[in-house]
């Protein structure tokens, strides 16, 4: 039969009519193939269209393939079982019916190969069509398995096909974000999710082994997108939405077991995180770690290595790792040596400027809320924070000042930081050592919070007022800083604008005569009106 193919190919039509006529042509041929086995060879034409240059032709062809092979699968016109190669097929003795089926099965295989290739097409429409068609095939294959069942209780699921789809999604060269988000709807299905997770871990293991420790940003980005779009059910009872219904023993199927799901999920993430990540990826993972990864793992403690490693990286990554660590310490009895020392080490000027400021201070507030902490430690934190406050923007200051006051309130022994009546009027140099890493040796307890005194002269009235709090004995109840955590500079700015002035607006009484004059004339000293 293969010999007759060349004669039937007539794709070289004039370009002008191509659009409409090719669509008609394809649809005609699909109908012919489905209705009559005589025209089986038109399949080649249809597959040819899949490789066409024009986007519209390709889309049509993809749809046609979808229609054709779904119909064939439904009818059972595809060969089931171990498929012999085409040469063997010709030579071996088969009935015509079987030969037809084998032939169609071969075409089906080549069609899926082509579709998988099309997933990297430049047009998103094509990509999407290919993906959807492939997933349709997966569904149909699940219903009408193409593998010979050797025993009754075999669970059939088109694992290979799905794996191939996942393999294509996790491209090493191309950012598949859009397609992955399209794919997300299939991840709702329990069985698809399960097999996707296992294929992801396989893929990661394979690809990263090959890369030998070099980070592959695009690939890892794709993996992260796919992995993070996995939405795990929180309870076993919710496992009900399946793509493929098993005939027997549905409950015993691995994909139907909640525990297996968790295990697969865990394996996927561990596999992914085992390898070196680019720092932006690190941050992305850490941001979602505590609330979409850790709760769904069967053994969250396995994350300890990853988190401690991230915590040691320093900078923003450490700040983010803090959140995961907190979950582990809080819920899984993680004992972290020198945790506070490291936390102390995290306090750097940039801590007030990074995006994750609110999250960090929220956690720091929790970590430092224990009343069993040694005084020297709390004093060191208070002192370091106030030293850093000298470079902080006003929005951060409004948060950190009550934070420091709260620390002193919780640990009354720290009151000496703001009230040392024993040696008044004895000027001394600040004994605190900013460079010392160990809070135990930084002499914070012997110091005073002169920085806060300085901040009483801050230009922002609210900050100055907040800093004034240390002039008087602190009140008993703590300030609530939860609202202040998220305060942004713009909010603060707007607050200043909205402040209703009861009195008339005060005006400058020095008469303005020129642009660069007035208030010290600093601008005029350096710049000219040019």
């Amino acid at each position: 039969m293969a010999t007759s193919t060349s004669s039937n190919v007539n794709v070289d039509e004039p370009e002008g009519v191509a659009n409409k006529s090719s669509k008609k042509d394809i649809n005609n041929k699909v109908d012919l193939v489905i209705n009559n086995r005589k025209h089986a060879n038109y399949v080649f034409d249809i597959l040819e269209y899949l490789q066409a240059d024009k986007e519209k032709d390709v889309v049509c062809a993809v749809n046609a393939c979808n229609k054709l092979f779904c119909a064939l699968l439904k009818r059972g016109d595809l060969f089931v079982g171990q498929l012999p190669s085409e040469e063997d097929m010709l030579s071996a003795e088969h009935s015509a019916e079987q030969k037809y089926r084998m032939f169609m099965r071969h075409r089906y295989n080549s069609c899926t190969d082509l579709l998988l290739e099309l997933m990297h097409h430049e047009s998103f429409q094509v990509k999407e069509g290919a993906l959807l068609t492939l997933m349709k095939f997966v569904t149909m294959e699940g219903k009408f398995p193409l593998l010979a069942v050797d025993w009754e209780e075999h669970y059939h699921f088109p694992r290979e096909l799905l794996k191939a789809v996942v393999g294509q999604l996790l491209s090493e060269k191309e950012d598949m974000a859009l397609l992955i988000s399209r794919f997300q709807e299939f991840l709702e299905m329990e069985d698809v999710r399960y097999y996707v997770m296992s294929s992801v871990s396989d893929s990661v293991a394979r690809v990263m082994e090959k890369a030998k420790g070099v980070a592959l940003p695009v690939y890892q980005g794709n993996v992260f997108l796919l992995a993070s779009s996995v939405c795990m059910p929180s309870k076993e009872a919710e496992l009900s939405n399946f793509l493929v219904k098993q005939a027997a023993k549905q409950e015993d199927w691995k994909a139907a077991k909640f525990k297996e799901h968790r295990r697969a999920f865990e394996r996927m993430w561990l596999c992914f995180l085992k390898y070196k990540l680019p720092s932006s990826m690190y941050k992305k993972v850490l941001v979602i770690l505590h609330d979409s990864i850790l709760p769904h793992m069967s053994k969250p403690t396995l994350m300890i290595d990853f988190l401690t490693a991230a915590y040691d990286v320093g900078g923003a990554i450490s700040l983010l790792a803090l959140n995961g660590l907190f979950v582990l310490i809080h819920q899984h009895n993680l004992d972290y040596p020198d945790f506070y020392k490291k936390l102390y080490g995290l306090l750097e000027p940039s801590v007030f400027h990074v995006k994750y400021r609110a999250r960090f201070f929220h956690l720091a507030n929790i970590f430092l809320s224990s009343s069993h902490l040694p005084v020297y430690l709390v004093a060191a934190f208070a002192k370091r924070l106030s030293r850093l406050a000298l470079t902080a923007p006003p929005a951060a200051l409004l948060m950190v000042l009550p934070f420091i006051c709260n620390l002193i309130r919780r640990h009354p022994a720290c009151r000496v930081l703001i009230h040392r009546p024993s040696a008044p009027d004895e000027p001394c140099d600040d004994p605190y050592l900013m460079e010392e890493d160990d809070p135990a040796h930084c002499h914070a307890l012997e110091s005073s919070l002169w920085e806060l005194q300085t901040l009483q002269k801050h230009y922002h009235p609210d900050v100055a007022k907040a800093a004034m709090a240390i002039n008087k004995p602190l009140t008993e109840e703590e300030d609530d800083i939860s609202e202040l955590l998220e305060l942004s500079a713009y909010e603060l700015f707007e607050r200043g604008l909205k402040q209703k002035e009861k009195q008339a607006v005060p005006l400058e009484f020095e008469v303005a005569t020129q642009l660069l004059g007035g208030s010290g004339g600093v601008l005029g000293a350096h710049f000219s009106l040019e």
Partner: protein
Amino acid sequence: MGKPQKKKSLADKVRRTKTTTEIKNNPFEVKINRKKFEVLGRKTKHDVGLPGVSRSKAIQKRKDTLLKEYKQKDKSNKFIDRRFGEYDTKMAPEDKILKRFALERQRTNGKKDIYNLNEEEELTHYGQSLSEIEKFNDALDSDSDSEEKGLLSAELTASHFGGGGGLLRKKTAGEKGSEDGQKPKSRQELIEELIIKSKQEKRERQNQKEEAQELTEKLDQDWKSIQFILSKKPPKSEAKEDENKPKLEEYDMMVRELGFDMKAQPSEKMKTPEEVAREEKERLHKLEADRLRRMQGDVEESKSKKQVHWSADDLNDGFILDKEDKRALSYQDGKWNIEEELEKEKEGEEGDDDDDGDDDEEEEGESGQEEESQSDAESEDENDGSDEEEEDSHSDLDSEQDSEGEEEQTPKPSSSVSEEEQLAQQEAAKAELPYTFTAPESYSDLKSLIHGHTPEKQCLIVERIQKCNHPSLAVGNKLKLQKLFGFLLEYLGELATRSPPELGTINKLIPQLYGLCQLFPDAACKAMQTVLGDSAHEMEEAIEVKGRASFPGLDMLIYLKITALLFPTSDFRHPVVTPALMYISQALTKCPVTTLEEVTSGLILCCLALEYVTLSQRFVPELINFLLGILHLAVPVKQSLGYTVVPPFRPVGKNCDLLVIRSAEGAESWSRKTLPLSGVQGLSFLSEVERDHYRLSLLATCLDLVKRSVLLYKSLSSFDHIFQPIRILLTKHLPVESCSTHIKDLHQEVLVSVSGAPTLQPPLVFDKKKPIPLKLFTPKIVEVLDYGKKRGSSKQERERERLKHKYKKEFKGALREIRKDTKFLAREKLTEIMSRDLERKRKVKELFGSLATQEGEWKAMKRRKK
């Protein structure tokens, strides 16, 4: 009525017999008024009542008064008891009797002859015993002067009679003497002589009096004739002397009139230039004090809050229901008031010292002169001119009056010179510009008005718009000018965004903007806030999308500078300045520096931030961070820094050596000059050397800013720590060896000021707590009102209410009394009638009895006759 009457009288009788203590102890006599609740410290009068006693008292009183009157009714005669102390209730009866007896004894005591029954009492007339006077048959002269009526003064008696008994004796002696000499005068003759004499005297006196009267009348007339002349300056003392006794009222009236009369008063003294200067200084002092108060912020406000009343129930938890809404003395008001005063003063002395003081009022005054001169030259805008002229005419009037008593004014030559200059300028401008402008309704209107004119003329146009639409001229003008401020602001922004920016024009328009702002602070505040808000919003959006923003354009920088010019930057909290500072801070922390243009705008922002806090010496962390970052850009080797830069700067990166000097040649040939503001919009350099020069200028500026901020923050307690990174950077990393001497000097200067000996700080202690004063339960004084609740708000209303209440109470009481009186009278009448009836019955009975006896006797006689 009879029965209770009897009972009562019986009760009264019993009561009268008993003593008060007995009554009070008798529980049947006492009526206790039950109180609902006790009020601490309130004295009650009426808790225990003795109804019986009070009733009997009332009855007794009526008997003493009403009954008496009733009895006296229809009787014209009155019996008055003249006995001593008859109506004196205070006197004890025993005393009365004693006194009366004593008086009786005294009277009888003085009798000369106990046997003379007729002369029991010596009768007197005007203190003279009648018995002695009677001896002379002539009584006192009846037609004697009314002035000395009935007064037998010693002098008179001595001259006329030789006095009483003496006269008698003399007479007898005289008689004896005359009998010896000539024919003695009879008594009759003597008396006649006396009469003639006294009549003569009388006549003389009358004549004198008439003469005096004539004289005064004459004087009066004289006075009247010269009164008009003297109306201003009355010789008071003279007038007083003239008008003595006669026509007292008239005189008084006239004196008063004179007192009220208009006198030529000395006008206020001319102010010397020193005085004016001193006043100006005082005004500035006051404004400065006000500024300082606002700089301290709310802290001081709370301190100065005056003590309020503390209730005994006050928990001292600071919870106060009603706030004090007392408005503090507003800055603006103070200013305007003062300026108005100044204006008045200026009116009074216009032309004297125009060049004193640099107020904008002065500007107005000058312009007024201009206008005047213009109006001389040609027909002028009516509104404008008449306004000014009116002022002038007033001042003329004033000066005329002044000149009477005061020294002459001396117009200074300087003002006339300036006037001439102005005139010349006006002449030049007059050629093209119209004098009236309608206020622009939209921004495009304004633009079309000023389009194509030179900066000076634009300035003039805006000024004229302002004048033609002065708020006092028409109702809608205020709104128009308020809008004008917004348009002007927009126009300035547009000027700044043009390339090249027309900064000269902006500079010229600043005084106009300031003037408008002074007129409409609220509108200016709002316009400025919108500008800032819009720009900040834009920046915020950029930050949200990209995580960073670009530096604000030149227009925003100009706006920020204008903010500093229009509003006081030192206030603790200000509706415009605080947001503006927030804006600067946000720009300094969120905008990454990647080009030299951005370095320039960053440095401008730093300059502005420094200007904002120069007076208040407030701490701006972003400023130090940014300056450190800029200096960091000039560090060539970025290894082992020893300091950390704060975002938006990064320790290493692609734009981190923006200010590193590339060639030694450029470093050497550089000389300091000011940077152009337009550098923000774009820079073009011909050669690398020129670029290096620009870099060095930026560096010098940055170093100077560091120096200024070091001086500014020297007093802060954490000064060392604030400047620690800069110190390290300057000592270890910044290469200055190859630079010119200016940079080297600057570097050295900053280094010295930064790395002084570490300041020693005393450890922190809390503020000394003021001892809480003992709680004194000062009584809350509430006006006690004799009627229930406090009604009415004003004092008059309350008084009215009180009187109404009192009237009602009194009315009721009176009614009750009257009722009781009538009751009493009726009772009395009844008893009278009853007693009368009883009497009549008795008499009838008697008559009947006597008749019966008569009859009986008569019958008996008849029987006996028989």
